[in-house]
């Protein structure tokens, strides 16, 4: 069937198709851009969260390490405290009258005990009870008074 239309419909149709194609192209490009932006923001956010998490883990690890160090120090201190406690307990048990301690001083790993005793026997007993002690000085002041000084090497 012959159907003629002298109006420039082919051109109009072509232009319309072109416009549709352009619109599709623009829409497609916009969609791709939008998709890219969404993915970009999503992955950036994901990366940020991961980094934050990693930083937190690192911080926690450092804190844990510090805590461990503190615990170690405290344990050491506790051990030392026990040693000091033991030391003073020994002195308290052994240095009882008629033996008196007049001073206690520390120089590095050395502890010097100075005191007074009635007899040399009491000093010997004290020295015997204190491990690794050296009797440094003994001085008879009167028949019933002997001044003494004991040096001990301790690991405090």
């Amino acid at each position, binding site marked *: *069937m*012959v*159907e*003629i*239309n*002298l*109006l*420039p*419909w*082919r051109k109009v149709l072509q232009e319309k198709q072109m416009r549709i194609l352009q619109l599709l192209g623009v829409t497609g490009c916009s969609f791709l851009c939008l998709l890219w932006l969404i993915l970009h923001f999503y992955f950036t956010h994901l990366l940020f969260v991961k980094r934050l998490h990693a930083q937190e883990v690192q911080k926690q690890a450092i804190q844990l390490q510090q805590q461990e160090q503190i615990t170690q120090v405290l344990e050491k201190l506790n051990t030392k405290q026990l040693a000091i406690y033991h030391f003073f307990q020994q002195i308290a048990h052994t240095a009882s009258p008629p033996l008196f301690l007049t001073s206690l001083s520390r120089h590095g790993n050395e502890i010097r005990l100075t005191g007074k005793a009635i007899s040399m026997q009491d000093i010997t007993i004290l020295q015997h009870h204190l491990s690794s002690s050296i009797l440094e000085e003994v001085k008879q002041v009167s028949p019933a008074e002997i001044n003494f000084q004991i040096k001990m090497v301790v690991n405090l």
Partner: protein
Amino acid sequence: MHLLVGLDIHQTEVRLLQLTKIKQQIILKNFTLAALPEGAMVDGIIKQISNVQTAVDAVVAKTVTFGSAVAIGLPGNQVTSKQLKFPREWPLAAIATEIADNLYQYLPDGDKEVWFDFSLLQNQSSDYQEVVFVAAAKNYVQPFLDIAMKAGLLPKVIDVAEHIYSRLSLEVFNLLIQGEFALVAPRFRVAYGLACRSHKTW
């Protein structure tokens, strides 16, 4: 489906026909004509635009078809119509390009600005495909367009009367007409053919 208003500007009168679709049936809604004074149109060329305009305005007002899409029929006198042959394997786009490139070879007068169209003929037997090529000078077609637009119509199709006749057999047309329209029916044949146009091309 959009229906067109068929406007046939004939040598002696202007004819307008409008169809409507009710429940999948296309029925006649309006038909009217207005006589043209002698000399308003000579040999298919509009000589007195104002008189033709008045007649078209009158038929549009009578049928209240302002703003309707219209198919206009041109008398065949001033239209170049040719039958061309192209290889069967050529696609429609290639034929369109070929016709557009060699347009002025097909025109006898060498008009500077022409409007043209073509339509494939159904020919299964031969090795080539036949194409009906129609062209008309723009300054010949333009008054028809201007008159329709001034009357408040929206031109969508410009067809040639001869092709409408060939497309629409009289028997089918006579079956469709009823009542008083039957008396004037043959005069509305072109307008009816225009109103029945398929809308693929606009």
